[in-house]
């Protein structure tokens, strides 16, 4: 059975401003011509200071000196509703955008979420995570659900519906006035009127609307189609100059992204955060772009937030930020990692845990400080290894043949010349040569660009301090001795 959930976001402009900040600053949304700017919404902190909707901006600012007044933007509201719709798509494939809210058909998906109550809880807690509050109501017809949500009645039967004032039908003011002049107040009163007379007087579409409210007339809805890429933006009501402050709005964006990705059964590998800056202090400042690159598709908001937190530690803002936006251009199929029933398998070493660790280290320290080592098939010692970025796929690189001669566990990046005494090398005292020589040479054909010819005799040597060293003597004149490694 179809069941429609109507979500109505009252004072959406105010909610948009409030969701970006964690504290309680006095906020007001204003609208109107330049000379007649008036408060249309204000939050509890502003109300406590005496600000009320309808007040002139100047009066409101006199009452609350710290008042942050933001202008209403219909485009922003529309974008926010579309963002919520994209998020809600995870709960139902029937999402309808309305001017101040959404309609979701939840009857067909409630089994997937384990019943009506868990689904309802998932939607309301999810909305709270996004930073929105909504009045919601369930009904079998979409129009009924909306009327109930406007009446703040969670569920109503037909009798209750008849007792609701007809103003909830959101008809135009002139019609409402006429109806009121006739002495009618409730929806029930309208239903008492003869149908054909009602249709003649108020138009057939009003009668149809009444039938839709009662759920006796079919009410097809234009369905929301989610976009191919994710974009969301938060306006920051106060200037944020610390990157740590950005985490709060970023969490909202990531929660929204998670819902969007769940709805599309996808994951993201590249998240682009961009913060625009206020121009007040030092002229136009290019936006700060922070890219979060992931090894594997991911959508878990908590994990992404943890990674972003590490990433932001490396970022400084050139100027206070005024907006924060998140964009994900490419969606990738997402295979959720199932938690294992069995004790951790041996190969879990390369599982999600490994990835998470690598990504966390990577996000904070950068790619040049987090690496893996590989053996390279080359007989010149300094070219027999390389550092590579942490590999993601489980296939270990085929290890080339390893040298049969002893190799030191620590290698110096460049051989260090040893001082000499009586033609004997010192490091730092007299050395005893233990094994060797192992001749390592390369021909002219080995010399790539920038490589030097190698003609060396390697020895294992021991000094008086208990170090075992790997040293060599140049075969070419002047036969210098060098330290190249430590058998640590």
């Amino acid at each position, binding site marked *: 059975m179809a069941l429609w959930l109507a979500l109505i976001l009252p004072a959406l402009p105010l909610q948009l401003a409030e969701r970006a900040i964690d504290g309680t600053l006095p906020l007001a949304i204003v609208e109107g011509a330049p000379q007649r700017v008036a408060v249309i919404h204000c939050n509890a902190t502003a109300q406590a200071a005496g600000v009320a909707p309808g007040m002139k901006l100047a009066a409101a600012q006199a009452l609350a000196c710290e008042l942050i007044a933001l202008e209403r933007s219909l485009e922003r509201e529309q974008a926010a509703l579309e963002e919520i719709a994209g998020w809600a798509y995870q709960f139902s494939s029937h999402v309808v955008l309305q001017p101040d809210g959404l309609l979701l058909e939840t009857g067909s998906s409630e089994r997937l979420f384990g019943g009506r109550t868990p689904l309802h809880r998932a939607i309301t807690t999810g909305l709270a995570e996004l930073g929105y509050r909504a009045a919601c109501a369930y009904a079998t017809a979409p129009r009924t659900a909306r009327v109930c949500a406007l009446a703040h009645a969670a569920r109503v039967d037909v009798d209750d519906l008849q007792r609701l004032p007809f103003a909830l039908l959101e008809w135009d003011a002139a019609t409402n006035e006429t109806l009121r002049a006739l002495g009618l107040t409730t929806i029930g009163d309208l239903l008492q009127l003869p149908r054909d007379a009602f249709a003649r007087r108020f138009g057939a579409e009003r009668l149809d609307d009444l039938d839709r409210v009662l759920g006796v007339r079919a009410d097809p809805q234009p369905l929301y189609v989610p976009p191919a890429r994710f974009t969301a933006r938060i306006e920051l009501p106060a200037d944020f100059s610390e990157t740590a402050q950005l985490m709060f709005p970023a969490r909202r964006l990531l929660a929204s992204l998670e819902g969007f990705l769940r709805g599309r059964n996808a994951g993201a590998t590249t998240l682009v955060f961009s913060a625009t800056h206020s121009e007040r202090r030092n002229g136009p400042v290019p936006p700060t772009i922070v890219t979060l690159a992931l090894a594997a598709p991911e959508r878990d908001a908590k994990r992404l937030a943890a990674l972003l937190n590490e990433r932001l530690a490396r970022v400084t803002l050139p100027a206070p930020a005024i907006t924060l936006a998140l964009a994900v251009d490419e969606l990738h199929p997402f295979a959720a990692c199932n938690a294992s029933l069995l004790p*951790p398998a*041996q*190969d879990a*070493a*390369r*599982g999600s*845990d*490994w990835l998470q*660790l*690598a990504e966390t*280290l990577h996000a*904070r*320290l950068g790619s*040049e*400080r*987090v*690496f*893996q*080592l*590989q*053996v390279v098939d080359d007989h010149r010692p300094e070219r*027999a*290894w*390389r*550092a590579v970025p942490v*590999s993601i796929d489980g296939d*270990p*690189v085929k*290890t080339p043949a*390893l*040298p049969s001669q*002893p*190799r*030191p*566990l*620590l*290698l110096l*990046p460049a051989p*260090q010349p040893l001082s000499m005494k009586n033609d004997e090398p010192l490091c730092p005292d007299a050395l*005893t040569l*233990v*094994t*060797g*020589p192992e001749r390592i040479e390369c021909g002219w054909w080995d010399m790539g660009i920038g490589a030097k010819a190698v003609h060396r*005799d390697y*020895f*294992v040597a021991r000094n008086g*301090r*208990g*170090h*075992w060293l790997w040293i060599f*003597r140049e*075969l*070419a004149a002047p*036969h210098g001795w060098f*330290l190249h*490694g*430590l*058998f*640590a």
Partner: protein
Amino acid sequence: MRAATELLSLLQTAGGAPLWRADELPAEDAGGPTLASGFAELDRELPGGGWPLGQLIELLTDDAGIGELSLLAPSLAQLAQSRRSAVWVLPVDAARATPRSLEAQAVPYAPALATAGLDLARTIFVKPATPRESLWAVEQSLRARHLGAVVGWLPHASGEGDFRALRRLHLLAQSHQALAFVLRSTREAQAPSPAMLRLQLASAGAQLQVTLLKRRGRPLLDPITLQLRPAHWEQARVEADTALPRTMPAATALLGAPRPLDELLA
């Protein structure tokens, strides 16, 4: 004393009652799982017969390169056998510090690590820029659930704040069965430490001398001497001069003197 001996023999003959004597090391199962270190002399003295898993192990040495990696290699190789991953948090990249010690510049050498049996595909190396990053990286690694081992150089750690940092590492280590080695300076030998096992490393001639500063159970007063390098290296001697021909063999010596082309064709 006699009474005590008699009591002991009485208890032993009575059987059944498990008796722990204070001069014995705790029973193997008492301190959680361990992993053999690969050195019999050391295993004999470690409670449980090996490195304790899920506990912070401190190795104190000032003399980098005396054999600390060779000491760890066998146990790390064992973990690689069971396909567990490892993280190495290398010494802080002291580019600004002067003078730069050779050991701080040295990098683990992949062919030698692979020869020792370490799985390089499952090992992450971290080169931190500051001591704080070192601690952070070790901490993050210990938080990963399936990690096999962490080897972290924390030579800069010192002072009261460090005890707390190490204590946090110790608590994190306890939540998983990982090998957690931290390498610190011997200056910390007298400082209190939350680690249950502390070893001080020094060289003794050609061998490595390990002093157990702290372990569960009875303290060990005498240091252990470990043979880390092949035994035949001990006595081996070579002379550089006999081994080195002073000149490169000329190509002509190998191929013979060049002959005229028409002679070859004839």
